[in-house]
């Protein structure tokens, strides 16, 4: 209940702030659609690879970067400190702050992937896995957003502090488009963003090996990475500015 109350307030704040609105809603949408005709992703080959790249970019811009920026702004305004003096639980506050951005990203994803399906004349082989890939990616990006916000003093500073995380996500998302077997492939799946690409590719293109075998490793590794990021963020996250 309190999470819904906070989510409603957060949605109002996003809609009323032009910078956040552009970063969270418009920029990822334009990027996602433009990727459909990009020579970089054209080389990836399959429609699944394109969808995976689009999803990674949408989640990175719409969730990871925007959550980092938004949390830094809310903390700077002492809004987070005030919420901590309310009866809202930590989980409600986190859910209330993150869920509107997750919802916006979900809508963007639906739009962008619909365009991709239309342009490529294909459809996801396993739509339920696509939902799982989105959920997995959203949790990972949100966890890294909170973690990055832990050491981000202001929304302006977020433009710098998101760079390492964004670089890692892009390496994870794009590198995975190149086939790799053995221990190297396992390690690569643990890179944030990599599992998202692997899951989405399987979800869209299907797999000859049966998808349970194909998704078990990236799913387990990415969940472990997301949980680890969330635990570290919970330990490091500051609800008020450093004094």
């Amino acid at each position, binding site marked *: *209940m*309190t999470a819904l*109350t*906070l989510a409603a*307030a957060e949605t*109002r*704040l996003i809609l*009323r*702030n032009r910078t956040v609105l552009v970063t969270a809603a418009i920029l990822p949408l334009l990027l996602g659609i433009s990727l459909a005709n990009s020579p970089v992703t054209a080389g990836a080959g399959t429609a699944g690879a394109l969808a995976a790249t689009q999803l990674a970019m949408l989640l990175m811009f719409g969730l990871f970067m925007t959550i980092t920026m938004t949390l830094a702004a*809310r903390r700077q*305004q*002492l*809004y*987070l*400190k*005030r*919420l*901590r*003096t*309310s*009866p*809202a*639980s930590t989980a409600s506050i986190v859910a209330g702050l993150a869920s509107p951005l997750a919802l916006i990203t979900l809508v963007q994803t639906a739009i962008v992937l619909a365009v991709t399906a239309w342009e490529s004349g294909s459809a996801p082989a396993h739509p339920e896995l696509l939902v799982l890939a989105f959920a997995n990616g959203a949790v990972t990006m949100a966890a890294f957003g909170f973690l990055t916000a832990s050491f981000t003093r202001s929304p302006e500073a977020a433009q710098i502090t998101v760079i390492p995380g964004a670089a890692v996500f892009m390496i994870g998302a794009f590198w995975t488009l190149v086939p790799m077997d053995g221990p190297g492939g396992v390690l690569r799946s643990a890179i944030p963003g990599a599992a998202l690409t692997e899951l989405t590719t399987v979800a869209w293109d299907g797999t000859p090996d049966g998808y349970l075998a194909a998704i078990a490793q990236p799913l387990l590794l990415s969940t472990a990475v997301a949980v680890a990021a969330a635990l570290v963020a919970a330990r490091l996250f500051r*609800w*008020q500015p450093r*004094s």
Partner: protein
Amino acid sequence: MNAITHQPAPPVEVRDLTCRYGAFTAVDRVSFTVGHGELFALLGTNGAGKTTTLETAIGLRRPASGTARVLGRDPGRHRRELAGAVAVIGQETGFADDLTVAETLKLWTDLHRLAPRAELLERVDLAHRAQVRVGALSGGERRRLDLALAAATDPEVLFADEPTTGLDPASRRRTWGLLRELTEQGTAVVLTTHYLDEAAELADHVAIMDRGRIVRFGTVAEITASYEARITARPEPFDPIALPALAGRTAIADGRLTVRTTELQRDLHRLLDWAARDGVALADLKAEPATLDEIFAELETEPADRTGALR
């Protein structure tokens, strides 16, 4: 009143609280208790340790040692349970600038699962600004909105950190009125302020903090009584040699007589007797206890090792 299970313990109990920032001790073995319906004022200059004491008592900071208990519970560990019964007015308001005044009040009452209380905006003279975004409010208006949010939850305990800073005189008086109403309803109030008149006007008990320690404690009357009172007058005609023997110290400047004394009544009586007997008019006669301003000024000149914690 938004009550949680009542404990036999006082609403606020702070014992030997010590807080450090690295090697710097911001609060040094501070102790006080606040009862139901009592307004306790923590006075001190900037950096005296008032806000750190308050934030630790609220549970926003962990003490290096000592304890803070609110309604018998550790505020650091029972934040959510206490949040319904404890209101906080911070030095900075912590509002989301893009929400309107009405939306901010509604968000707060919704988070506390309370019915909307739009009438509170009337009480703090913000009803006409209900649809204005908080970011467009003046500093004083933000403070008044903060007060409305605190009052909205009918708290058992209110922590107010310099709630009238930046307010105009009318708003200050309105704030004082609301604080009085809350204490009359039984709310325990811990107020930090550097306005001495505010403490004198509102507080049942006062603690003066200096360099992290409580250096004076008591009612305003008790504290001022331990300092020299002052009698001033302009005797006409004035012959200093004819002055009666007084317990206090006398000073004469520009025809004005000033007597600083710990025996106000006796010295005043002697002066009045002398004036009546010798036919002296005591123009502009004033007899008053030491003001908190003077006590503050005196404390600031004392070295740290001469100011000991009293309670």
